[in-house]
């Protein structure tokens, strides 16, 4: 009986000539190349034209890119350890002219005597702390390489109280169990959200001095955040209030398309 699979029909097939083989392989490989190439181009177009994320604590980035930023943050946060200290330098290396980039939330004058740091507790109670009182807490100095998200860096010298010392002094340890700290300028025009491990990092300061002098207005008098494990954008000047939360507090630059974590 004859079947289509019989040996005879198979044997009747002539082997391909070299030229046929070349044509066939060219067709397959170039075809694949063009298909994959077009798919890649389409994928890029899709990503590039993808809609902006819905504005929440973060905004201004393409939806898939924001998702990627957040996933990448999670991946790198696993590596984060408070044992990793920022490199410090001798005092002589600190810049005399400390660079200043922005005044958002800290422009204009402020009466430092009347200023009070407001610490918003979970109970609704608000601590109001004067700068003199903060200066009585144990003092810490740090001379490190300040890094701006723009790409410049500068060794600068800051003095103040460790955020973790501040927490324990005001018996806020239970608040430090929450996941985030939010800081705001008195006029609420600038605000940052910081994950608790970074805030409690031993080199994070509530700073009131630069180069051993009281902070000038442009550097955030009377009290600013110096958080060496973050880019400059998180180093809020002229702190008005501090709050604690398990949700991400609003963050000025995260609303402009920047990574929320912005950790170094």
């Amino acid at each position: 009986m004859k079947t289509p699979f019989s040996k005879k029909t198979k044997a009747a097939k002539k082997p391909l000539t070299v030229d046929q083989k070349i044509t066939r392989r060219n067709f397959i490989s170039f075809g694949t190349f063009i298909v994959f190439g077009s798919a890649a181009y389409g994928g890029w177009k899709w990503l590039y034209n993808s809609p902006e994320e819905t504005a929440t604590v973060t905004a201004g980035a393409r939806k898939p890119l924001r998702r990627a930023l957040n996933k990448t943050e999670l991946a790198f946060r696993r590596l984060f350890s408070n044992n990793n200290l920022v490199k410090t330098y001798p005092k002589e290396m600190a810049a005399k002219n400390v660079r200043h980039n922005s005044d958002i939330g800290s422009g204009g004058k402020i009466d430092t005597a009347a200023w009070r740091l407001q610490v918003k507790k979970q109970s609704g109670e608000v601590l109001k702390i004067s700068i003199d009182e903060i200066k009585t807490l144990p003092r810490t100095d740090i001379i490190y390489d300040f890094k701006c998200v723009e790409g410049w860096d500068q060794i600068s010298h800051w003095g103040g109280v460790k955020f973790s010392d501040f927490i324990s002094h005001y018996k806020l340890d239970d608040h430090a169990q929450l996941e985030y700290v939010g800081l705001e300028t008195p006029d609420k025009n600038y605000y940052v959200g910081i994950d608790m491990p970074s805030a409690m990092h031993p080199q994070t300061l509530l700073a009131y001095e630069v180069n051993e002098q009281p902070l000038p207005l442009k550097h955030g008098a009377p009290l600013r955040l110096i958080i060496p494990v973050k880019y400059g954008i998180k180093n809020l000047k002229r702190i008005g209030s501090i709050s604690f939360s398990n949700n991400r507090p609003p963050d000025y630059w995260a609303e402009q398309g920047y990574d929320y974590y912005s950790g170094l």
Partner: protein
Amino acid sequence: MKVIKEKHPLVMRWTHWVNFPILTIMIWSGMLIYWANDEYKITLFGHTYFMFFPQWFYDKLNIPHRLAEGMAFHFLFMWFFVLNGILYVLYTIISGEWRELLPQKKSFKEAWLVLLHDLHIRKMAPPQNKYNAAQRIAYTAIIVMGIGSVITGLAIYKPVQFYYLTWLCGGYHLARIFHFVLTIGYVLFFIIHVVQVVLAGWNNFRSVISGFEVINEKPKPIVETNTPKDENPIQ
């Protein structure tokens, strides 16, 4: 007679062509980032010869004021860049292809001869296997550069968590400069690479897509035709 000669394995073709758009995106998004602090220039004896980059260049490519966007793209595509690179390096190691790629002792001397040959100064090029001496050096260097970009990149991306990498690069400031210089290196590599590919012609280019080259081989006689020695003894 035409003969098909296998040249580039699929993994090498794949990683090569995947790398091309990824590296393009990395360089582009890198420029969006660099713009925010574009302080590098070529200065000799107080005279500035070139600013990275001139304003017309920025405007042409629509680079200004896109730092956040640049970072978002850069920190997504870095994963693909690294994964693709790891795939390539692993493949070359496991397949043994590295033997064709790593420079040998003689490669450094020979590369000079290859250069002279390519510039039409010298007639003969040194004998080679799959790649000539100059290619061995270039294709190994580009991988070293890729690793360099990842190391310097991590050094400026997470200088606290990867402080040892930052230290290795001579600090944060220097790491950023190296990261930039390596990118300039890619652009120079790309230019020479494309010129060489154009000069090498279609057969060579096709092999990077379809994997084979077509060569003309003289047909070999099937029966050995050694002249019998004892028939015509020479006296």
